[in-house]
């Protein structure tokens, strides 16, 4: 007597359609709807749902080390109420700068790891933690495989926080399951942001240019000092201001 049924179990179509990961022709329905304001209107304009996607993995490829992570994410970090965890950061953040930016030090926790296994275990654990609202993670020296990235992505789906993984520029050529992938590069006058993958957006988004902080531009070169418009002196052309002009020294004839 055969006790096991040979007929396949009836699968309700409604049940299947309720699953969020089944493609139904409308590709945008697959993407997480929740997002947080990035703090930059020009960036929000190109991001789906008008901000950084939460409950998923955001991958930022950096050209070289230390490419404006704080510049990009400090508006989000300042606004969130939960914990901000820096996993495997390339250096120690300078507390004076964080206090100046209005970031609460009580909510910033730094986790340092030695190897890839510890990184993955910590990432998964932190991404699943409810009160960890922002997770900024820097890939360890060993490269992460697609399977490992997929593991990270699944962990981020369990929580509502913003999870960002910083990777080197070379990772741009590798496949990744991250929902949003972008390249960041600092230029002489601005910060370039190129979005090369955004789930559910087929055409390439236009690159975004973010302004550099004024203080970073430094002092003007000597020959341009003359062009500064001082407060209360606007409208006077530099040629008319004799006192402000710098005249090169010439040896006169005797």
């Amino acid at each position, binding site marked *: 007597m055969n006790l096991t049924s040979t007929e396949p179990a009836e699968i309700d179509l409604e049940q299947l359609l309720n699953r969020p990961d089944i493609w139904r022709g409308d590709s945008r329905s697959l993407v997480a709807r929740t997002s947080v304001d990035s703090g930059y209107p020009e960036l929000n304009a190109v991001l789906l749902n008008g901000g950084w996607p939460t409950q998923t993995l955001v991958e930022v490829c950096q*050209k*070289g*080390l*230390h*490419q*404006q*992570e*704080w*510049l990009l994410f400090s508006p989000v970090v300042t606004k969130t109420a*939960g*914990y901000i965890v820096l996993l495997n*950061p*390339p*250096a*120690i*953040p*300078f*507390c*004076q*700068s*964080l*206090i*100046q930016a209005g970031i*609460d*030090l*009580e909510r*910033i*926790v*730094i*986790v*340092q*790891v*030695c190897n890839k296994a*510890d990184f993955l*275990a*910590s990432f998964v*654990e*932190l991404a*699943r*933690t*409810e*009160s*960890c609202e922002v997770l900024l993670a820097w890939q360890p020296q060993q490269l992460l495989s697609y399977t490992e990235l997929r593991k990270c992505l699944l962990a981020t789906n369990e929580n509502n926080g913003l999870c960002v993984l910083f990777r080197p520029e070379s990772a741009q050529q590798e496949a990744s399951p991250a929902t949003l992938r972008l390249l960041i590069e*600092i*230029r*002489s006058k601005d910060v370039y942001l190129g979005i090369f993958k955004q789930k559910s957006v087929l055409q390439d988004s236009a690159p975004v240019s973010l302004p550099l902080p004024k*203080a*970073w*531009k*430094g*002092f003007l070169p000597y020959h341009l000092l003359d062009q500064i418009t001082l407060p209360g002196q606007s409208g006077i052309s530099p040629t008319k201001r004799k006192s402000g002009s710098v005249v090169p020294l010439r040896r006169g004839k005797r």
Partner: protein
Amino acid sequence: MTFRNTYRNNWYRPDSRLWLALRFNHLPLEALALDNSENNAMVIIEKQRVIYMNELAYAAGVRFGIDVTTAQLLSNCESHERDKNKEMKVLADLSAQLYQFTPYIETYICQYLPHTGLLLEISTCLKLFSGTTSLLSLITRFLQSAAYSFEVGFAHTSKGAWLLSFQPIEIVGNETKELFCERLKKLPIQLLHDFPREVDALQKTGFSTLEDITRQIDAQKISAIKKRLGVQFSQAICDIFSIEQNLQQKKLFDTPLTTYKPVEVFSENIQFDYPISQNDQLHYPIEHLLQNLSQYLRKRQLACQHIEWKLSDIHRNSFLLTVHSDSAESHWELLYDLTLIQLDNRELPFEVDSLTLNCRDANPVQNKSHALSFNHTRQSRAGTRSFTITMAKLKARLGDAAIFKLSYRDALLPEISNAVIAINEPCNQHLPDIHKKALRPCWLLAAPVLIEERKQSLYWRGKLTLLAGPERIRSTWWDTAKARDYFIAQRHDNVRLWIFLDLHKKTWHVHGIFG
């Protein structure tokens, strides 16, 4: 029949109390567990003064209170520092073992002299042990087996029994309150060790025995003693003799007996049917034992931070695995996760035959401190808890040093002002005005990195160009003077760096990165 006989042996009224004092006169020496077999002169010292000497030292002229150098000159004795913790541990162990005789056990420690002992109220257990003499013989036999020398005092009050232990009299079992009082009256007043000033004053006025005090009380009431020697002393005299003061409802003012609470330790064991060689097979037994521990803790309103696993095999080899948690827990889930983290990192040393869970240190849940905040919602508290649990798990995996917070330390040098603290500690976020306006990088290198100078240009992973500065920082003039001029520099790839010129060494260093 037996009951009737035992009742006959009990001579005391049901409401009267009987105290047995056990004075451990050699405890300072015996607690140290020293080898005294060589018959050397030995002294125990506290603050460089002798507080105990053995017979040989006493025979050589060493007395209580003399300094250690004099004692060594007199007797060439060995000196050992007193260890009060060990003495307390001996008393706690003895109390736990004497709990089999009576539930009312008090510890007596003299403030001024090294006198310690235990006071046992035995009136309620005379019937159980067939009278005073048989109970006393049982206790004596037990203490002799424990190898601690002691003296016994027996009286109707605890303090009276303690005093009578200095003048041991054979206990018959039919002593009455009057007889106890008569015995107490003969004692010298010097035995009131807790009141050295009062004893001195009494001696000067011609008092020599306790009877002199009782006679004074009979003549002038207790208030005269209270007036001259203080409330505490008069209360002590009342406690020694059980003098009833004029109270309308005496029962209400009776001092309640202290019930001894034995130290409870959780220990449970699982024997396996077959030897276990893989970690995964231990998961279910671990969960089962931890659930039992959780039930035990919650029933007693306790929480623990530290548990111990003992893995044993059939050859009596054992392996200990200790699990620490940052927060005190009464739920099993976190302890389970922490245990698995520890187990995953290692292989089983042998085929495990039995698994034991021990939890020795548990604290009452009420002692837990909580932040008083009226804005915190239930959800945010739950969030903090989930974060604490995550941090505990990460600490178990990565170590305590791998997880930290930052705090500002009031200092001029950047590397000193950036303090790394544990995540439980509060941060200092008060930045002085001098630093508020200055431009600071987001990343600070652990130590300044030397910049290469080539053809009057600076190089650190690329050519550097100075953009702004300098900002001069001078500090630690009292130690190694440091003077630095900080600049913002731009590298060829447009990354902004925070660099400085060491004014003493004339060298350039990278110290931070604007990111």
